[in-house]
């Protein structure tokens, strides 16, 4: 029973139950990125990454600065596309991660998700 409870807790935590982010207000984001792998979206994401100052915290190539490295295995494996989307859109309350819902449309956020996934794949290919 204890293990079941622990497992349920883990699922709850992993799906964001402990935070304020996943789903966010309204929680309407689709589970998967509709622009996944789209080269144009990746390109747009790269531009947006700088325009909204993601690089200021996460570094020019998202490999970390003040904020966490968004390309390493540990980070890339953990969150779903939806969680990344919601984190960008609604922020993480009580941290430096601010909501960007007033700066970016949903499509732009998905473009950023695509770009981050692309960087993660690139890093994996480099074997670093």
């Amino acid at each position: 029973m204890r293990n079941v409870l622990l497992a349920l807790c883990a699922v709850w935590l992993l799906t964001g139950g402990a935070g304020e982010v996943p789903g966010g207000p309204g929680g309407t984001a689709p589970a998967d990125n509709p622009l996944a792998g789209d080269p144009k979206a990746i390109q747009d994401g790269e531009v947006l990454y700088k325009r909204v100052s993601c690089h200021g915290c996460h570094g020019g190539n998202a490999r970390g600065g003040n904020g966490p490295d968004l390309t390493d295995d540990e980070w890339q494996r953990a969150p779903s596309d939806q969680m990344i989307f919601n984190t960008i859109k609604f922020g993480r309350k009580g941290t430096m991660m601010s909501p960007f819902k007033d700066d970016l449309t949903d499509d732009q956020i998905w473009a950023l998700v695509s770009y981050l996934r692309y960087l993660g794949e690139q890093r994996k290919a480099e074997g670093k």
Partner: protein
Amino acid sequence: MSARAGIGMLRAVCAVLIGAVLFTSAGAAEVKHTPVTDAMLLNAGKDGNNWLMAGRDYSGTRFSPLKQIDTRNVGKLVPVWTFSFGVLDAQNTTPLVVDGVMYVTSSHGRIFAVDARNGTMLWQYNHPLPDEVGKFMCCDLGNRGAAVYKDKVFYATPDSHVIALDRATGKVVWDVTIADWTKAYTMTVAPLIVKGKVVVGMSGAEYPTRLWIEALDTETGKQAWRTYTIPGPGEFGFDTWGNTDPEAWKFGGGSAWITGSYDPQLDILYWSVGNPNPDWDGMNRKGDNLYTNSTLALNPDNGDIKFYFQYTPWDVWDYDGNNETILADINGKKVWLHGDRNGFLYKIDRTNGKFIWGKEISKVNWATGFTAEGRPIVNPDKVTNYEKKVTNVCPASEGGKWWNPMSYNPQLQMVFVPSREICVDLLAGPSERVEGKYNLGIAEADWHKGHGQLVAFDAVTGEKKWTVKAPSPFTSGVLTTAGGLTFAGTPEGLFNAYDSKTGKELWSYQTGSGIVGSPVSFMIDGRQYVAIPSGWGGWTGWATWGGRGGAPHLKDNRKGGYLTVFALFQ
């Protein structure tokens, strides 16, 4: 009920009773809220019991005259209480102590009053922060400390409120907003009380801003004066912003988030100013860019600039020169000491701003020396532009000496500088000027792996007396004491005590998270305490930027948010 269960219940009841008694004892102990007078502030340097302002005294020495804890017994230092701030991220604070009550700020806009004998919280105030404010702050939601005067405690918040609270109750007396955080005008500074005014300075020079130093009435919060750190049209120095961009001055940064110092005899307030914006791109602001990277000597009554000394004219390295000035009287000479991120320790005549000497804290190659007036002789090989990548520039933006305050021991006439040896490759790049958005002017920045060091200087001659090396930069402020001790902390969370004369490590304690705040010492009922905040955060790009950085082993360094207080075991 079985006998075993009965015993268990009895134990629980006993524990509750004991806890209740202890809690009642702690709570019942008398807590005083002694009014802080001008005389107390003027004599703070001699008052070992209290720690009344961020720099401890108007000279900013961070030197405690206490000597109960000394080089012989420091090994018996043990933690006596800890206090959680309840939040993570950069704990940049310097706690204050007034007659046994500690006032300590934390990240995310919080302030606490704590019984400094036992860590019992007396009150807390959590300023409600807008969710979005983080994206308008380059370097985390930290705060560098509070100020106390009469019956109030004052602090500044990330969204640019300056707040006065009743020291006894934590109730807000006044709360004024002095800037628009949505345009990246933000605050992390520990205020300074001077002649009945609370003086603060702005953050935000990584964004297009024009920043300032401001004095407010301590009773009402009403503005007494504001001095912009960048001259406007018609003012002296306006012509130092070049002629290619007519609005360069208007968005030229010049932050002022390190607490100043005050000389009551000269009646001068010394306050330093940080980097120009864009940080690394100097193409459209050719000139000295006054008063960035300077210390201003101000009239505390009206904010007028009496004189200044500029450390790094036309900064294209982000040598954010707003570090503290320590006022010292050395062999009859009134000077200020300033460790700069440009790699030099300066000694300046504080009666007139004239250069006495500059000595290397760390390796310096962006400049090859000084003119007689103290102007750095720039090495053109280390000046970047859009087409020219420069490599192995020493030091990197964080120095030398970063923002963490150094300490001056007047008995030894020595200054103790938290430092690092990290160099960087830079390529400037044009960036779009949009209010509220980063404007760094950098295309590439690669910090080289380096190491940390704590460096002790003879303040008379500038000679290095000793250097302690460490795997990571020393990122805490420094405390020195009349017990012959120098305390400093590391990103790994180690809080260390050294023999001030030799640099020999005498004691070390793992606080649990990286230290980016400053230690203090105080005495209550005849017992000396040392306190250190810990909680990793702030600008940490230098450590791990791009997966490499100056200290890549600090990737995913543990966060925290607490205070640990030590005394001799008894």
